[in-house]
């Protein structure tokens, strides 16, 4: 469904993606791990052209996302994106954040949009917060509203860019739970995260990135095997240790 072919990207003279190839099939959950600055976020941002690439090809269902004729806004409606910093619209209520896309893009009436938005808020357990401004919500609640905002557009794919990295530890669980439910429901997902437990439990495949390259890939079950995945295994153990301490 999503295919990266020899993707290269530079910020000035710094190469942030180097010859990245890979495929995400419908219904699959890929988890991207690696040290910061390794290009994980940049890679998923290329899928909806939040970042342009200099060479190679990123395609969704065979359509090149860089193609001139492509309706990029229509593509973006099909792909949900969840940010580390939530990026809720602070001048709109939780409900207003969700209805904006529904009324402006889906052409829903206000009442229909409200009903749809309430369904999504219920799914992330925030019915009671519908009329709160984002500034009054906790980090975990904000991120769940952000997830609901994306899901309301009925995306075929969800991209998560370190959705729990800005959260206090006690709020990580509620966001991961929402993501796990989504994965269990068959959603195609690419998640950039340092949550090793989540990766082991939910990922179909983990990609380990370093210096702009995907240097190892493996199924969670294979990660104990030091011979085939030495660096990925070592990285995951290190992350687990630092979080455990």
């Amino acid at each position, binding site marked *: 469904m999503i295919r990266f072919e020899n993707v290269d990207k530079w910020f000035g003279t710094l190469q942030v993606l180097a010859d990245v190839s890979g495929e995400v099939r419908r219904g699959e959950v890929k988890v991207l791990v690696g040290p910061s600055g390794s290009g994980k976020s940049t890679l998923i941002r290329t899928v*909806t052209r*939040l970042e342009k690439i200099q060479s190679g090809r990123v395609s969704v269902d065979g359509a090149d996302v860089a193609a001139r004729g492509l309706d990029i*806004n*229509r*593509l*973006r*409606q099909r*792909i*949900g*994106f969840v*940010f580390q*910093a939530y*990026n*809720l*619209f*602070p*001048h709109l209520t939780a409900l207003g954040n969700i209805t*904006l*896309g529904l009324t*402006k*893009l889906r052409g829903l009436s206000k009442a229909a949009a409200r009903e749809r938005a309430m369904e999504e808020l219920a799914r992330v357990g925030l019915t009671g917060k519908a009329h709160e*401004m984002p*500034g009054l919500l906790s980090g975990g609640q904000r991120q769940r509203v*952000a997830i609901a*905002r*994306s899901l309301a*557009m009925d995306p075929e794919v969800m991209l998560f860019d370190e959705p729990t990295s800005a959260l206090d530890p006690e709020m990580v669980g509620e966001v991961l739970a929402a993501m796990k439910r989504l994965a269990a429901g068959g959603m195609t997902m690419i998640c950039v995260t340092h949550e090793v437990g989540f990766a082991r439990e939910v990922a179909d495949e983990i990609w380990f990135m370093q210096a702009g390259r995907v240097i190892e890939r493996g199924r969670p079950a294979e990660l104990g095997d030091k011979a085939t995945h030495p660096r990925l295994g070592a990285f995951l153990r290190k992350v687990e240790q630092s979080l455990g301490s």
Partner: protein
Amino acid sequence: MLEILQNNWLLFLVGQYPHGPIGGLAMTLFMASISLALCFPFAIGLALARLSPYRWLRLPATAIVHTVRGLPLIMFIFWTYFFSPLVIGRAVGGVETLVIALVIYEAAYLSEIIRAGIEGLPKGQVEAATSLGLRYWPTTIKVVLPQALHNMLPSMVSQFVSTIKETSLGYVISAHELTFAAAQVNNVLLTQPFEVYGILALTYFALCFALTSLARFIERRISGDRGGTPGVTIAA
């Protein structure tokens, strides 16, 4: 001073109205408000053009803003005063002249305030809107401008304060505003310019100080209810 005020308060307040044109403080406030209101759409247009990825929009807008900001207001007043009758084909009154000049002048300054407000928004706001699939205009109208204008409210009140002070230049083209009223009083009394212009100064000060305090109050409110990110106040 009190006696002057007692005898002339109505002239200070509304000019010769109802026996002549409305003027005084009422006209000063009216001109400042209407100028700011009328320049608002132009200011938003200029700000968006300056931030546009397209050179053909960005360059002319930048040139306009820099030109206007590089010239004194009194020049615009003279230009409007002498040229607008040629363009319109009839004599143009002092008030209209001043309002036209102020709209041009304030649009440039206000556009810089709005531009700062837009640039001050976290990048993620536009990215989130873009990621939903929203195009440029819905993003601008529903996400960018409401936040930018809200954050810039204190600066806009400051701009209103400087506009009030600038209306006093209307005196040179006989726009019937507060300074003009004071000059009329002075011409009648002849011997008490210090007192008359003292009243004028106090009136401007009271008005502007009250508004500046309002701006500070709004600024505190804004930084309070959005959890940080205080609005940037550009000094008038």
